[in-house]
């Protein structure tokens, strides 16, 4: 997924405040283009998150939302949880990059629970993030490990938020959610629109300039 993460990073403007979800979204931080400054927010209380430290240099009290050791860059600041979610809920975060279980044609996101009866439900900050960040970007494999589409007409898993996703980056394409429809704005090298459509559970539109 590193090429997809690069694509996401290229689309984030200089000066953006960005929250990265746990897992694949964390890869995005590795690809900030030269000359650009992006400030990473981690909801457990840090703006200005830097790279993962070497194995023996980690501080167990300096971690990210995924509870991994990280670093703080010059110009960073610490704050408490209510202030952190004021940033999120108050619309101050420019981009939030999240993983997904499913995304629907009108931008519904399911990424916190498969709804299985025995699953321990755990939501973290995902519902606040999708409600508050200015742009919600999903980065994900296009299909599940079993080959099922993750982009669907209607989510079958419990929702994280309704009509919240603005853009989807997968290993096959970049897809914008606009006017309750899915617009393909970029195809990965060697991927045809027909192949993409065949592997997607919702109807796709082609951007005219794509």
């Amino acid at each position, binding site marked *: 997924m590193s090429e997809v993460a690069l694509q996401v990073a290229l689309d984030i403007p200089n*000066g953006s405040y960005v929250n990265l979800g746990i897992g694949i979204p964390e890869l995005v931080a590795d690809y900030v283009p030269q000359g650009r400054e992006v400030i990473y927010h981690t909801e457990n209380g840090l703006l200005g998150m830097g790279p993962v430290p070497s194995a023996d240099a980690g501080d167990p009290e300096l971690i990210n939302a995924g509870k991994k050791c990280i670093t703080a860059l010059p110009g960073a600041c610490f704050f408490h949880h209510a202030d952190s979610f004021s940033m999120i*809920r108050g*619309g101050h975060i420019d981009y939030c990059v999240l993983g997904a279980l499913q995304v629907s044609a009108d931008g519904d996101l399911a990424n916190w629970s498969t709804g299985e009866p025995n699953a321990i439900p755990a939501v973290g900050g995902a519902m606040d993030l999708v409600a508050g960040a200015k742009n919600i970007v999903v980065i994900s494999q296009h299909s599940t490990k079993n080959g099922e589409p993750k982009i669907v007409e209607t989510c079958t898993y419990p929702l994280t938020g309704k009509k919240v996703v603005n853009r989807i980056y997968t290993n096959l394409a970049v897809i914008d959610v606009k006017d309750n429809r899915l617009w393909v704005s970029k195809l990965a090298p060697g991927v045809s629109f027909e192949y993409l459509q065949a592997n997607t559970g919702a109807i796709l539109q082609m951007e005219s300039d794509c």
Partner: protein
Amino acid sequence: MIDKIVGSAKDAVSDIFDGAVVMISGFGEAGSPIELIHALIDHGARNLTIVSNNTGSGHVGLAALIANRQVRKMICSFPRTANSKVFPELYTKGEIELELVPQGTLAERIRAGGSGIPAFYTPASVNTPLGLNKEVRVFGERSYVLEHALTADFSLVKCRAADRYGNLVYNKTARNFGPIMCMGARTTIVQASEILPLGGIDPEIVITPGIFVKRVVHIPNPVHESVLVAENRRYPW
């Protein structure tokens, strides 16, 4: 590169438009961004709604902005000042509006605006004239009024020191409304007595994270309102 430092107070306020809602920090003179207010007087935007705890002193700063007839409406908790008749005279003539808000409710409404909370309940003003026409609701055995978030187009805030990311620290009780007003506006404009390099402010002691700040102006030796008032100065000079 991110650099929120702008060259002058004039540049910093140049896009404040007629009819804008503008929050102005300060409790009395402590924390009042007097140089930014004077730049707003020079700029001349009119018909403003100003959110600020008081209405200014003498004939400088906020009082001068009001005297210059740029303010349509004040949202504040304490519009009386010992040494200024500017607001009272216009108010008595019906030439300026007043929304009087209990101070804690004012602070919480501003914080809510910056925090994505559209409304909340508070006990302040229940069973008083300021609680009239507000929705009342009982939680437990107590009555509360519904209060709505306040947001602004611009905030003008004074702080002690800033860096190019807009991280801020304040000075003593001049902090007051500054941090929450930084949160509550789409465009927050700050005057800082000192500009520090990135990393010059310990990340543990940052009071306003830069995410809440859009522009920083360096005003190395801000005037003291009380000194100007004692000298009976007027703005424009």
